[in-house]
């Protein structure tokens, strides 16, 4: 059923874009300027600023990763994710899916990765703020926390880096929520974001198309639930190994 909806949606957008490309809709064509439309950036900035102002939240998402096989065939892998965040220095990110089962814990002092399936975990000392921790994880350990782009207070600058074009596609509905639909282009990638209308401009969907790769695979995230008033406890962010869990090391990045 969902795949039917997705297919329909994809078809609808394909049709919309085809029509726009054919310049059969002069208004839509005019709304797609060569540069970056100020209305698009205003809507995006409102969303990232709103998120940066939230002291804590949790969010549940449905993610689809397309991969291209040697044959050229595209295969999709799904996983669902849940992220719990408390500024300035608490994070828990869980992913469960076809290819990954992993929980990331950050309690302001240590970063832990835990694979519940294999019962392996690794712990490393971490800096004192979310942003420093994410930087350290990415640069020193090559760890990417899911949806961590939402965490950075300068998310807008990160998203807009190298963007050359941007415009408002129009209104859309994601999971029953009315949204503004924006589209941007950067070297190598196109991306689209759907932002909730109204006083809480939360991102509801994100699609990234890798343009310069064969068959242009996409990564998409659909938010199924936002909670801006979550109830967290110490165990939300602190990891205590379950019985039978085995501690392992991180492979240092320098050895790679």
């Amino acid at each position: 059923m969902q795949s039917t909806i997705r297919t329909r949606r994809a078809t609808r957008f394909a049709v919309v874009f085809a029509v726009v490309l054919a310049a059969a809709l002069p208004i839509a064509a005019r709304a797609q300027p060569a540069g970056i439309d100020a209305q698009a950036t205003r809507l995006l900035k409102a969303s990232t600023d709103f998120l940066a102002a939230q002291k804590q939240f949790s969010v549940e998402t449905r993610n689809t990763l397309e991969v291209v096989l040697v044959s050229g065939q595209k295969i999709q892998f799904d996983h669902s994710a849940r992220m719990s965040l408390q500024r300035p220095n608490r994070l828990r990110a869980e992913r469960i899916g076809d290819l990954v089962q992993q929980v990331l814990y950050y309690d302001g002092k240590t970063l832990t990765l835990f694979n519940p399936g294999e019962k392996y975990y690794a712990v490393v000392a971490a800096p004192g703020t979310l942003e420093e921790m994410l930087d350290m994880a990415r640069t020193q350990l090559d760890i990417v926390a899911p949806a961590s782009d939402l965490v950075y207070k300068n998310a807008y600058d990160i998203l807009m880096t190298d963007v050359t074009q941007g415009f408002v596609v129009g209104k859309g509905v994601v999971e029953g929520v009315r949204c503004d639909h924006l589209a941007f282009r950067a070297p190598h990638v196109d991306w689209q974001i759907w932002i909730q209308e109204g006083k809480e401009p939360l991102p509801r969907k994100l699609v990234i198309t890798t343009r310069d790769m064969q068959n242009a695979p996409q990564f998409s995230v659909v938010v199924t639930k936002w909670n801006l008033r979550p109830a967290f406890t110490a165990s939300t962010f602190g990891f205590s190994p379950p019985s039978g869990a085995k501690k392992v090391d991180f492979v240092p990045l320098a050895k790679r």
Partner: protein
Amino acid sequence: MNFRKTIRALAVGASLPVLLLAGASPEAPLGLTLGREAAAIVGAPATPLSYAGAARRTTRRVVAVETTAATAAVATTAAATSAAAASAAQQQQAVAQQQAATAQQQAAVAQQQAAVAQQQAMAAGLPAIGTVVPALPAGCVAAPKGGVEYYRCGNAYYRAAFQGNNLVYVVAQP
């Protein structure tokens, strides 16, 4: 399920040639544990935020390729320049370039030697210590030692580790 198994089988069977042909890294965006499937994959898309990171990783690979190309270019330039060198300045430049080329050639030789050493170890039936694999070979048994979980696979020992978000196995010396 059968299809996923097929992908895995395909991946295991075809991993090396595919990786060589595609120049693809088995690492996946967002740190997804693609594991064995990854090897059959030509490409996976950039992901949120990581597309900046992916660009950095791509840069790293591109840099490696460009260095090789630069070696050839420098060598060519050096030969052409030295042949046509009229001024002392140009000659000095050519010498510097030749030295750079020589240094790079030496680096290449060192890399080859390292590769040969690894091949010899492989020929002896033992993967080099520190070799990282996305999955254990067939027929491994748990062989814990000194509180560390090792797996014995023939004469080689492996231990689990995280490489980025991915769970991998590293050839170790217990």
